């Protein structure tokens, strides 16, 4: 609690965009997140690695309050997500206030989750026009620019079901970006894709990282982590086991959990495909 109060009054350029403090989350008796602390600074690309079940996705989903933390707090742009600090206690926000907070973070899901009843362009227009109440005319130009940048301008007027997985995921990235979020959250964005489609999505993400977007990426793509991440966070058993630049965490891991994980990834890669 003291940490939160501290960040409330010291704010300058070097303040983290996302600050995770003593975050805990349990599903019933199962404690997924035991205690997570993490700071993400403007323009940083943070890649989260870890076995399935280590709490990576849950942590990511706590950042935009899709999961309600059991303890601790997440701050985005210095504002506590899902709560208001009043006196000594954190008071739960109303659903509408939480919705307003979520508009500042963009999220890309493993299963794309495009709206199937809307065309590609309508998928992009929906949130800016409804949530931010911006004029469709203005947003349409921005949306088309974004679609062009992900290479899908010619698909603007088709329904998502006609697109490949890779194309759908690129639309999903554009849909999140059109809200002009201050941070982008990626939850295993390439895990549901056929191998030959992974590259096109990673390419868009690399371009986004180059443009200076703050990104938190949960992925198993070690190559992406090595090439693009400023910081790699390795999670194990609901905690941050190791953290640092990719050259350190991936090439010279210290924690036992990280070593085992990387070794198992290498073994899998070395096994010849039949």
């Amino acid at each position: 609690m003291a940490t939160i109060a501290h960040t409330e009054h010291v704010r300058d350029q070097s303040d983290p965009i996302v600050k995770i403090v003593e975050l805990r989350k349990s599903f019933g008796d199962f404690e997924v997140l035991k205690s997570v602390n993490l700071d993400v600074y403007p323009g940083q690309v943070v890649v989260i690695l870890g076995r399935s079940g280590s709490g990576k996705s849950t942590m990511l989903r706590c950042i935009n309050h899709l999961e309600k933390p059991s303890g601790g707090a997440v701050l985005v742009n210095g504002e506590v997500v899902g709560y208001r600090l009043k006196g000594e206690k954190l008071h739960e926000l109303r659903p509408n206030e939480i919705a307003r907070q979520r508009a500042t973070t963009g999220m890309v899901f493993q299963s794309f989750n495009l709206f199937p009843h809307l065309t590609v362009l309508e998928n992009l227009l929906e949130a800016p026009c409804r949530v931010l109440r911006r004029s469709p005319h203005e947003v349409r130009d921005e949306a088309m620019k974004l679609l062009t940048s992900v290479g899908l301008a010619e698909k603007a007027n088709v329904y998502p079901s006609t697109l490949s997985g890779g194309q759908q995921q690129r639309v999903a990235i554009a849909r999140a970006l059109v809200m002009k979020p201050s941070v982008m959250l990626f939850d295993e964005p390439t895990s549901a894709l056929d191998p030959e489609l992974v590259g096109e999505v990673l390419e868009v993400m690399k371009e986004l990282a180059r443009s200076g977007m703050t990104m938190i990426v949960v992925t198993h793509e070690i190559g992406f982590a090595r090439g693009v991440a400023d910081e790699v966070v390795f999670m194990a058993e609901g905690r941050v086991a190791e953290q640092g630049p990719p050259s350190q965490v991936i090439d010279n891991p210290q924690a036992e959990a990280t070593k085992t994980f990387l070794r198992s990834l290498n073994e899998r890669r070395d096994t010849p495909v039949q």
Partner: protein
Amino acid sequence: MESAKAKTHPQHTPSNAVSATSALTADQETLARETVPLRHHGRTVAAVFLLLVVANLAHSMVTNQNFQWPTVWHYLFFPEIMAGLGRTLILTVVSMTMAIVLGILLAACRLSGNKVLQAVAGAYLWFFRGTPLLIQLIFLYNLSALYPRLGIGVPFGGPELIGGSTNLVLSLWTVALVGLALHESAYMAEIVRGGLLSVPKHQTEAAAALGMNNVMAFGRIILPQALRVIVPPTGNQVIGMLKYSSLVSVIALPDLLYSAQMIYTQTFETIPLLIVVSFWYLLCTSILTLFQQRIERYYGRGVAGQSTTPGRGRILGLGMPRKRVRTTLSSTTAEEG
């Protein structure tokens, strides 16, 4: 070449694989021939038989004097019949509208996190689906025997604010409309609930992650997708309601059927009047079916296997075309450059 291969084949090739290949080459000439489709003799026989039955039926309908076609024609546009048809349509539209609204509320209760709401809605469904509509109508008609006065006031026997004698509050029309609606709402609740549950949870999450509040996410994302599942069975229910509304004849509301009954109990022209009634019911259900198909196509947009080209969003060509944002590629590429 072919024959030489076939001759040498037994000595040279002991393995099965090779013999199979040579058999294939030998057959190639045969395989290239025209195919003859299988004849379905059973189907032909059945079709001929059914055609004979239908023709005989049609013949009897024309020649059998008991159909009394002139009488049918006489009553087809009879004022009382027309008035009855009007009442049937009003009953269907109004009670169905009430049932849909009530059904959505009940579905919301069933899906809410509140255990009391869930239980009350569950009990409601249990009762109204578990007893026949006919009994519910007669019951409501005789409610005054149970509660002579109806009104709103302080619960548990406190003073009444407004109210009146049950027979005055519940007119014939009120009994019929409320009775049909209460019964139907139980079915609509399950249809709506099924539709809402058919939309994957991911869609709610995606809407939430974009900052949409609950109302927006429901109205713009969840409901339009749920309607694809809700609309077809609702169409069936409307068609069903058109016919079940004839049950109000037991409480003497002169709907289409009861109007005909009132005539034929006096004139004994039972068959022709039942034909008249059937004709109007069939005409109405046919029109409703046509509507249903159009609406289903509209809500099926974007689903694989259905129309995937946008812009066909009009129901029966009526009303406003769906608001659609057209973007010409040339204009945006021009801006890029």
